[in-house]
């Protein structure tokens, strides 16, 4: 199936896709374990989602609908260009609506809308090894994973509490998957960690530069690490979204001027637009023209 671009379907050649799929299957079979794979050069720089793109390219079919988010937003450069990449090379339908997507490739967020069992969430991962900053040797970290020697991870959390009085890690917060492997959930905010637990959607993680793929199969136990007397806490916001008045969502801080004015708005742009279309109005929306209130791309 050759698209007009002259590339194979979804850019990667079939042999490469089979190789990536094998890694994905192995990752699903051992939840949280980092499976090495022969990561390819992609037509984008490392750090822009080369791992996620390879995973998506390997699992996408012509009947899939793709959504790409970058820090929760569908409309940033990274999200737009990856969406266009697959429109061009795989000729698939794309969407910004979370419930319409069958594959969601994400950089650093999990959508606010609960995912279903028919969806796959693909994470772009910069540094897959949660123990990396404490133990620089790959040979040693592999051994630590193999022997389940995870005391080191708590050393990091201990240091946090000793220095800040609480666990100050707010993103890339380590989790234990299926009571076995300790995993870095990529730099998602810890706000999203509870959503990983027992999720009906398959979660795949691709790290292109580090050449690792790992996975959380559907309905798998994912526990954020903590201490008995300093339990894991989800990030709390003291105000609702300034645009759609949503509570209990992850907010981005937007600096508005030099006078210290700030806007806290939903990081999930699809969620925010949907709520505005439903008539929810945040304090900062004021008397904005109606076309902004429910604006869809």
């Amino acid at each position, binding site marked *: 199936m050759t698209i007009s671009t002259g590339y194979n379907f979804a850019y990667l050649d079939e042999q490469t896709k089979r190789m990536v799929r094998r890694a994905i299957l192995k990752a699903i079979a051992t939840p949280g374990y980092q499976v090495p794979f022969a990561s390819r050069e992609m037509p984008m720089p490392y750090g822009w989602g080369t791992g996620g793109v390879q995973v998506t390219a390997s699992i996408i079919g012509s009947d899939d609908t793709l959504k790409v988010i970058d820090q929760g937003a569908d409309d940033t450069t990274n999200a737009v260009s990856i969406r266009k990449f697959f429109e061009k090379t795989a000729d698939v339908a794309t969407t910004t609506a979370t419930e319409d997507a069958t594959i969601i490739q994400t950089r650093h967020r999990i959508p606010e809308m609960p995912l279903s069992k028919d969806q796959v969430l693909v994470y772009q991962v910069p540094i897959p090894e949660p123990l990396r900053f*404490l133990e620089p040797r790959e040979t040693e970290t592999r*051994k630590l994973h193999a*022997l*389940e*020697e995870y*005391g*080191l991870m*708590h*050393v990091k959390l*201990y*240091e946090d*509490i*000793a*220095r800040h009085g609480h666990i100050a890690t707010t993103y890339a917060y380590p989790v234990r998957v299926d009571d076995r492997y300790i995993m870095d959930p990529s730099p998602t905010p810890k706000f999203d960690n509870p959503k990983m637990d027992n999720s009906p959607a398959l979660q795949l993680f691709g790290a292109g530069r580090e050449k690792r793929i790992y996975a959380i199969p559907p309905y798998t136990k994912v526990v954020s690490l*903590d*201490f*008995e*007397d*300093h339990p894991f806490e989800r990030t709390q916001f003291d105000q609702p979204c300034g645009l759609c008045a949503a509570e209990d969502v992850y907010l981005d801080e937007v600096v508005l001027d030099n006078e210290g004015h700030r806007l806290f708005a939903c990081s999930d742009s699809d969620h925010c637009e949907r709520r505005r279309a439903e008539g929810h109005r945040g304090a900062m929306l004021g008397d904005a023209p109606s076309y902004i209130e429910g604006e869809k791309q």
Partner: protein
Amino acid sequence: MTRVDGVALFDGSHARRRDSGRSALAHLTTDLPLLSGEAITKSYGDRVGCVDVSFDVWPGEVLAIVGESGSGKTTLLNVLSTQLTPTSGVIRYRMGCGEMRDVFELNEAERRILMRTEWGFVHQDPREGLRMNVSAGANVGERLMAIGARNYGRIRGAASEWLGRVEIDDDRIDDKPRAFSGGMRQRLQIARNLVSNPRLVFMDEPTGGLDVSVQARLLDLVRGLVSELGLSVIIVTHDLAVARLLSHRIMVMRGGRVVETGLTDQVLDDPSEPYTQLLVSSVLQV
């Protein structure tokens, strides 16, 4: 399966030891050695590290291995602590459950559990034994967290208590070892090893590189802790004074072989081998 074995083995021994507190030695009869080496030989190609070394270490005993540089004492220590594989020979350790096991027949998981629970290793250079980029408290607490402690308050309490025992002020608990003097680092390393109530501690020239007054304090401290905790210690040193102060028995090595062994005072006061006589007489008298 073997992994499970390793964990079970550790759980059982640790639980028992915790129940009986520091009387851990009480349930051990002393008619069996804690560690037993049999004809240990380690060669590096054509050159020899140590040759045909046999000895026993008993519970609560401090054994000093002395000799000049290159005599094979550090090689021997590294073999005993399973960091080097011997060319031939057998090393048996009496596990918490009382069973004598060949340490090189333990699988890697079991061996590593042993290394961070029942054993300790004090390096000559504290930078090798410490995590230099985390605080003193975390350094001491690491072993506790490694064996499953998950209560911050209690881990910190234990760290603070151990810092006190090695005479480090409590207000230094959040400082990194980089900010510590050499003597303090060495004391921190000792606390980090002893926090898990080990039964056997290996020490490689623990006073090397420290000035004399700091050495004296450290030796005093180690001597106190060893007798208080009933530790077995195998200490490698080239300094006969250290051996005299700390050890019950002494093993003199030369060219990889043990030339003389016996009670420390006996060997140092009345050495029978010419080499030992030479060694003892070459100590400067002040």
